[in-house]
């Protein structure tokens, strides 16, 4: 047995190509068939149509779905709204994550830092649904948000678009904190000393040295927050009231009009590809 294993190891050692093939076949199959394959099927089926009486898919080539997508005001509104939500969530995450990461990476005592990072990551271990329903409780009428904001004369935001943005921000915040934390932790303190030495006050150093060097990591984090927000359709169902996002439209069409759902599904794919291309210019992809 041991001899066979030894002989096999020897064969593998002498044939690097065989080694590589064995190593990569499974993951490459996974990537090609399941991921790219399903994307292709999605894209192709978006050009089919549906028999409006039977809801059967008719495999006839047509661009009707995309035409409808571009010309129907409701669809356009939903696309704009979805992108706006994703952008708002990303911006909020960045604004909240930066001071948080600054504290965990540079202000807190070094031995507390790993613990603080773990603390920031713990929400990721809890179930997505549990967290969203927790927010539903917080935002519900007479809930925590109402009770806390009541004394200021404003109630909580209730269910709707703001609630959706708020909840999504909470959900994806760790994905933004982590890359910023890493970038800030790796920032050489010599650069901060040098800036102060040359006459810069803290705010100036932050703007001219810290921010430009950490920005690629903010962009990297934004790739997560943006794409996760754009693809979400459950949160908005639970705390969004009557708000519709792309995900809801896909979900609603999947039974009755699969090709239309597919056409709608290509929208976030295209938007995210555009977003990635945009972010690549900031150097975000090399700091992932």
């Amino acid at each position, binding site marked *: 047995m041991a001899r066979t294993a030894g002989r096999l190891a020897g064969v593998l050692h002498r044939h690097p190509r065989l080694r590589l093939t064995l190593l990569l076949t499974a993951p490459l199959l996974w990537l090609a068939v399941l991921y790219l394959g399903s994307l292709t099927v999605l894209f192709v089926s978006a050009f089919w149509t549906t028999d409006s009486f039977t809801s059967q898919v008719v495999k006839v080539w047509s661009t009707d779905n995309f035409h409808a997508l571009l010309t129907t005001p409701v669809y356009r509104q939903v696309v704009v709204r979805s992108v706006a939500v994703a952008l708002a969530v990303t911006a909020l995450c960045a604004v909240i994550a930066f001071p948080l990461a600054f504290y965990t990476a540079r202000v807190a005592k070094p031995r507390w830092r790993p613990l603080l990072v773990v603390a920031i990551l713990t929400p990721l271990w809890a179930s997505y649904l549990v967290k969203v329903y927790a927010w539903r409780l917080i935002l519900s009428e007479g809930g925590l948000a109402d009770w806390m904001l009541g004394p200021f004369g404003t109630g909580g935001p209730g269910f709707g678009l703001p609630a959706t943005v708020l909840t999504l921000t909470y959900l994806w915040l760790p994905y933004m904190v982590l890359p910023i934390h890493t970038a800030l932790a790796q920032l*050489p303190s*010599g*650069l901060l*000393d*040098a*800036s*102060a*030495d*040359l*006459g*810069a*006050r803290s705010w*100036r150093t932050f703007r*001219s*040295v810290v921010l*430009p*060097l950490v920005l690629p990591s903010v962009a990297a984090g934004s790739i997560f927050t943006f794409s996760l927000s754009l693809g979400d359709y459950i949160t908005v169902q639970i705390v969004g009231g009557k708000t519709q996002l792309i995900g809801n439209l896909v979900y609603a069409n999947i039974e009755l009009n699969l090709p239309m759902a597919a056409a709608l599904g290509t929208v976030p794919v295209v938007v995210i590809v555009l977003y990635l291309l945009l972010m690549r210019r900031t150097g975000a992809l090399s700091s992932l």
Partner: protein
Amino acid sequence: MEGIAIRLRDLRKSFGETTAVAGIDLEVRDGEFFSMLGPSGSGKTTVLRLIAGFETPTGGRIELAGQDVTGLAPFERDVHTVFQDYALFPHMTVEQNVAYPLRIRKVPKAERLVRARKALAEVRLEGFGKRRPGQLSGGQRQRVALARALVGRPRVLLLDEPLGALDLKLREQMQVELKELQREVGITFVFVTHDQEEALTMSDRIAVFHQGRIEQVGTPAEVYERPASPFVASFVGTSNLLEGEAAHRVVGTPGTYSIRPEKIRILKESADADLPEHTSATGTVAEVVYLGDVTRFLVDLDAGGRLAALQQNLETSSADVAAYRGTRVRLLWHRRHAVEVPGSR
């Protein structure tokens, strides 16, 4: 106070239990090239960081040009630093790096550019303005750091072992350039180094640091010729001490004496050594080291102890040198070159 750039009064700094600086008094004059020399851990870099304002002293006082700056932030002090690792901003071009202190002072953009270019010319880096620090060699980065620290014409420039990362040739070249630059701009330079040769060649005055204290302050010649302590004698130049009984027998009085190797002449044992004002001692050559330009002889004295003596290779070659091993010699030096070192332990 006129003419004093930096004054330190009983300056102390501890990190927890460790004392890095144990009470330092020092005055650095305006326009001086002043070196702080010492082994690593002797507190010289900490003193530099205290002057720059990166560390707050545990006790004592720091004055810049007569003004107490002990509690001030780095950006409130008219002092710029050249860091050991240069600390150039990687996201800015060379020109932007150099113009950074001017940008902070809100110097108009056009003037900024002119002055940055001029500073780059001073360090002989014309035409490198548009590059990024990552595209430069170590020596070039060093020059950029210098230009950036000098462009704002601070009262004092602090240099933290700036030549440490350069190879020998470049280092010797930069030593000359730095000295010339300092003379041109007339700014006070405080130069931290552990390299005694560097300190000796460049400085107007040197402070020798040992265990958080200053052992001696003086001109290179003073520090070299008249070391104030056994530590200074051994750290600056080759350790060549005559101590205890041996000193008593050779010099006539007990104590610790430092004699620089190049001050000692090597003669045949039989040679007449009865010169006035001179001291001589006989011994056996224990080791001969051929160094190219000179040969170093290590001689075991009959009176005890061992002295090194240097001889210029006027005629000797490496082949002859080995033949000296084990021969009897007489060492001769002028009495004033045997310097009594105080505070012997």
